[in-house]
């Protein structure tokens, strides 16, 4: 699967802007982006519902230009599921095979097989409106997979499910994908969904892919402020690069009121303005000042959000900058944890900050 310089414009503004991308056989590729980032348009071009204004799409080396949706070796699972309301579960799933003019026996066998995989055998004769959201999702998945596509496109596959069901379904989706070996392209705005599902993530913004990488790459090594901010929570500090060596850099940040020492070089022009990104869970809180003068900041706890497993502390630094820190709630009693208005020191390991020049 290869996307080469694809652009799609609606009127003036490009919805997808010169995107090039390779997707490997058998992987789960997530297109992650906010609304209006062009991810859905890109997906619809792969399915054939939209034609690219420029550029080409190849599936298995075959150029898809001018090939109608019904002739592509691609199937899609729609965000709304788009199940045929007048057909039973069985008929819905069989629909795609009937278009291939297969024998009845073969259709019945393949439908039964796929319904078994998605665990919907008990509901074959139900109509879509008699199914729950999770069941509809399974039928939609079965309907797309039964065609044995080379590529399965999933548009916000878990978007309509409630949270508990979502987590459960994520793992099931992974298991089914592994079992059938179909390449998945998933579009989502939910970074949690992208993280658990994807083997690789492409983060989209304003019609462009801003970073491609494994979930770990994207989260731990974001290349731009946008990616750092969009994927997960992050604290960003502006600063000046004061020392740039092969094995470390030092950044003086007025916002932070401290010097940040990072244990890797960034090979950039000296004395430029950079942003330092530190994830909230990589910051520690202490009542006493930790040793060393770098990677430490002082402030006051402003707000505490109790999340159950973790608590989020908003700490106002002496410079006025607000910092978000996430700590696991290791102890049970609230009095033993940090309280509001408490004076605290924030610190982090030299490997934690990411220095961003863009």
């Amino acid at each position, binding site marked *: 699967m290869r996307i080469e310089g694809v652009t799609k414009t609606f009127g003036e503004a490009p919805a997808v802007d010169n995107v090039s991308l390779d997707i490997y056989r058998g992987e789960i590729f997530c297109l992650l982006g906010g609304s209006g980032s062009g991810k859905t348009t890109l997906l619809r071009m792969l399915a*054939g519902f939209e034609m690219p204004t420029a550029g080409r799409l190849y599936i298995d080396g075959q150029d898809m230009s001018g090939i109608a*949706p*019904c002739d592509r070796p691609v*199937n*899609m699972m729609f965000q*709304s599921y*788009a199940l*045929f*309301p*007048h057909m039973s579960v069985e008929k819905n799933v069989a629909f795609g095979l009937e278009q291939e003019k297969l024998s009845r026996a073969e259709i019945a066998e393949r439908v039964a097989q796929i319904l078994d995989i998605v665990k919907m055998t008990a509901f074959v004769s139900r109509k879509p409106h008699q199914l729950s959201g999770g069941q509809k999702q399974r039928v939609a998945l079965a309907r797309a997979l039964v065609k044995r596509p080379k590529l399965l496109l999933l548009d916000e596959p878990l978007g309509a499910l409630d949270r508990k069901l979502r987590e459960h379904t994520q793992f099931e989706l992974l298991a089914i994908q592994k079992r059938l070996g179909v390449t998945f392209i998933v579009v989502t705005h939910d970074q949690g969904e992208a993280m658990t599902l994807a083997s690789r993530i492409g983060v989209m913004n304003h019609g462009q892919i801003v970073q491609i990488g494994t979930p770990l790459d994207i989260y731990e090594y974001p290349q731009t402020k946008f990616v750092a901010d969009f994927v997960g929570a992050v604290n960003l500090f502006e600063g000046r690069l004061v020392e740039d060596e092969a094995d470390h850099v030092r950044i003086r940040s007025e916002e932070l009121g401290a010097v940040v020492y990072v244990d890797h070089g960034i090979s950039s022009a000296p004395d430029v303005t950079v942003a330092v990104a530190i994830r909230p869970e990589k910051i520690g809180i202490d009542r006493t000042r930790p040793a060393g003068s770098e990677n430490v900041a002082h402030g006051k706890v402003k707000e505490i959000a109790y999340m159950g497993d973790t608590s989020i502390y908003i700490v106002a630094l002496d410079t006025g900058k607000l910092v978000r820190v996430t700590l696991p709630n290791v102890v049970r009693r609230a009095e033993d944890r940090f309280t509001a208005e408490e004076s605290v020191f924030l610190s982090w390991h030299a490997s934690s900050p990411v220095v961003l020049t863009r």
Partner: protein
Amino acid sequence: MQALRKHPGRRFVVAVPYLWLSVLFLIPFIIVFKISFSETRMAMPPYAPLIEWRDGVIVGIKLYFANYRFLFTDRLYASAYLYSIKVAAVSTLWCLLIGYPMAYAIARSTAAWKNLLLMLIILPFWTSFLLRVYAWIGLLKSNGVINNTLLSLEVIHEPLTLMQTDFAVYIGIVYSYLPFMILPLYANLEKHDTTLLEAAADLGARPWRAFLRVTLPLSMPGIMAGCLLVFIPAVGEYVIPSLLGRTDQLMIGRVLSDEFFANRDWPVASAVAILILVLLVVPIMLFQRVQKTELEARP
């Protein structure tokens, strides 16, 4: 039911149309039904009373079934009934064939166009129905617009006989009733989710197959509603066949009016009316069943 108990005001809202229907439909129907069992006589009113009263006591009820028997013995009535059904059925089919693509096109056009096109569908109602049928006479008659145009273009050399034909009746009915087909179809097609068609295409169905397997079955309630809205009034249509139709073959609406006004045979006219109703009750019940199942099918 619970809603009714909680809000007594709703009972009142429901009662108004029921009262309206019973006063303006049921009571006249009972009167007509009663007359259909009376014997004709030259008097005022022109039928014998069913119930004989003497000193405030009912002494005898005379039901006269001869009116109905008469309808079955004279071939005129049977042929008029069958002809009416045929005309209505053919006209309904044409309305469907013409109306479906129109309704589909309107349902798929942009909002601005939608309003304009719907306006155009409803526009003819602003002119008198009678006037519009008369206008067709002007178009269809042997020295009318159509014949004159064809003659002057030398497509034909003799004027075509268009008036007083089945063709003219079909044109008249299809023309007049087309909006009744288009509007319910539009109301149905407009609600369709177009992603269903994308899903069908994605699963390998060509546009025509997707239409047959997805759009058509889902528009069935609209088709039924439109067909019944055209078929039921077309069976009893009086004006169009009288003005445009054949003189040797009458439709049942014309027979009814002739019996009533020309022959002053109220009982037979009533019997004809009752039989039309019976003939139409079946489609009406069908219509209501379809509506009911449509409501139930909705998630």
